[in-house]
């Protein structure tokens, strides 16, 4: 079995399962349109509650990692693979930046303002770049 959960860690099992599906996608153990094991199979193999497996799969569908096809099972979604990874990468980078800024003593408001002005500048730059593109 691809997955393993640890009941004594205190982390909700559906979250553990979600992490492991995502990890399997990242490492390439699961690829686009690969079928995931059925809910019953996961529940039996890991001796865990089927509703917990259902919840993990639903949340993963919601995040765009997999697709639930009625009656056929769960499949890894194509484009989501790289998209999910990108989002997570950006999230990690962002978290580190936020953490550093907070440690420097910035307030949440100040951070929000920096973020908003940064986004505005990026918008401008992109607008200018698009303009250049058009002129060519």
């Amino acid at each position, binding site marked *: 079995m691809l997955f393993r*959960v640890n*009941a004594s*860690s*205190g982390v*909700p*099992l559906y979250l553990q399962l979600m992490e492991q599906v995502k990890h399997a996608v990242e490492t390439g153990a699961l690829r686009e349109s690969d079928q995931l094991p059925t809910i019953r199979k996961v*529940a039996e193999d890991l*001796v865990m509650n*089927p509703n917990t497996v259902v919840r993990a799969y639903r949340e993963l569908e919601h995040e765009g990692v997999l697709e639930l096809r009625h009656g056929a099972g769960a499949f890894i979604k194509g484009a989501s693979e790289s998209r999910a990874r990108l989002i997570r990468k950006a999230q990690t980078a962002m978290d580190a930046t936020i953490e550093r800024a907070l440690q420097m003593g910035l307030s949440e408001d100040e951070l929000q303002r920096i973020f908003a002005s940064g986004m505005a500048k990026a918008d401008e730059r992109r607008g200018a770049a698009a303009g250049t593109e058009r002129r060519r």
Partner: protein
Amino acid sequence: MTEYVIETEQLSKSYKDKAALRGLDLRVPTGSIFGFLGRNGAGKTTTIKTLMGLLHADSGSARVFGLPASDANSAVAIRRRIGFVTEDKELYPYMTVEEIIRFTRAFFPAWRDDLERRYVEMFDLPLKRRITELSKGMRSKLMLLLAICRGADLLILDEPTDGLDPAAIEDVLRELVSIAATNGTTMFFSSHQLSEVDLVADHIGIIDRGKMVATGSLDDIKARYQHLRVVLDDARQAPVRWGDGVESARQEGRVVTLLVSRNAEAIAAQAQELPGAVVERYPVTLKEIFLEHVRSN
């Protein structure tokens, strides 16, 4: 189908002078696997017997499938739709395994012959042996077979893995999970084995001295409970009173460990405001939640 298969309100029951249940509120959602936890003598078996109509509560109400468990007629209707494994594992001792299977089968039109064959083989049950000659583990397996094969909508299991060896426990739990996944059967089971409850249950209820002290979806409970570790700049800074939601606070030198049952955000913020304090969060295990509740009262 009602939202809750089992619903009790303010259920109370005393034996002579001793109160076994003191206003128990229990709700078991349809389709859930509900782990019923409590110390010995907390009221688990009394609750189960009341639900099956074998005991009458002094006050309050108990409904199973929406029917009152205290009413003799509906108790029969309820028992027809549930399979149960009780703690004392009472069976007709003069029968052989084969006889009691045949005897029980006669009462249930929805009897599952396929499951019967499967479990006889899987549990390695000696068909010709008398029930009195069975080990504790064998009796548990036999009761489980009788409970499951009748095609029940609800399984009530009082310590279903009690007396089984680790390999047999794994077999039994895997079967329960498989039945739940295949048929959507609701399961209400009591257990002392927190690790197995942690894996198999999606809802739990912790009973202590006849009262429900914590109940709900296991994921929600785990998300709500947190350990906060606060490292103070100065040991004397620790507030005398923490915010609402702190179940326990323990201080060792400059380190304060809090067990929080709700409002974790607000409490972390409160700790963060102490000058120079560093706050870390850790998940809490079911065992820690359980011990906190049955010890503190």
